[in-house]
């Protein structure tokens, strides 16, 4: 479980990551806590075939920038799609 943290990225990888994050940086952004409030609604919109990026653009923007919220979004989607 602790293998991934030992990966030290190459400087070029970090530089690209930093530039990517800067292209997405906005004056006003939602925090993780604010995104968490809406992520269940966001995933339900996705699963209903709606366009959450249009309905909740600030949540979509945060998901592109924050790896933890992105991971939780994917996990929630995965869990709700599980057909038991």
């Amino acid at each position: 479980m602790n293998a991934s943290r030992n990966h030290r990225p190459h400087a070029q990888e970090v530089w690209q990551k930093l530039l990517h994050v800067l292209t997405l940086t906005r004056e006003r952004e939602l925090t993780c806590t604010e995104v968490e409030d809406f992520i269940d609604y966001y995933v339900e919109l996705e699963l209903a075939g709606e366009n959450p990026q249009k309905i909740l653009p600030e949540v979509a923007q945060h998901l592109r920038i924050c790896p933890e919220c992105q991971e939780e979004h994917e996990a929630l989607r995965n869990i709700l799609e599980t057909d038991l």
Partner: protein
Amino acid sequence: MSISRENADWLAHLRSSGAARDLAIQDLFAWLQNRLFFYLRGRDDLRQLHDQELQDLSQDFAQESVLVVLQKLDQFQGRSRFTTWAAKIAVHQALGELRRARWCDVSLQAITQDGRFEPEFFRRMASHNPEASAIQQEAIAVVMDVIENELSPRQRRALYARMVLGMPSSMLAEELGLTHNALYKLIHDARKRLKARLHARGLDPEELLASFR
């Protein structure tokens, strides 16, 4: 097991006492545990665990999650189905635990040595890359100047821990003695400053990014 309750029924049953509450808790626990089990089983980093261990793990996560759901019932606003809301809480709990387990023996001070953003980190990349254009070199110089001279020591450490080490924000917030939201603001301010300084020199992060691909 009945998971097809309406939101209002979930709330009423979980707020009641006696058999209706017990049954609702049991249903919610079973629903969360099943789904967490299959989710955990699909994770690459947990491949080494056997099904029984994953069952135990999903059971622990589901139990903790049900307790949190019960504590937060008043915060449910009905934007989604109740089970989706509960699943969101379970995912947050489970992934938080997994991240803590992965990073539990790591100290930010130790991994960043003196806690500074390695000052030569990007410059090394530029000097090792003869293909880097003059504009790329200029962008690297601007970024390094901001990091070294305009960001606070805390911002440098936070940026390094997030961007270079990939440290989860919950762990980093604890290390720095900040709330999660305060950490987000700290890094957001650093990002805005970096972006503004690049723009002030006529450098667009999007074009720079394209030039590095």
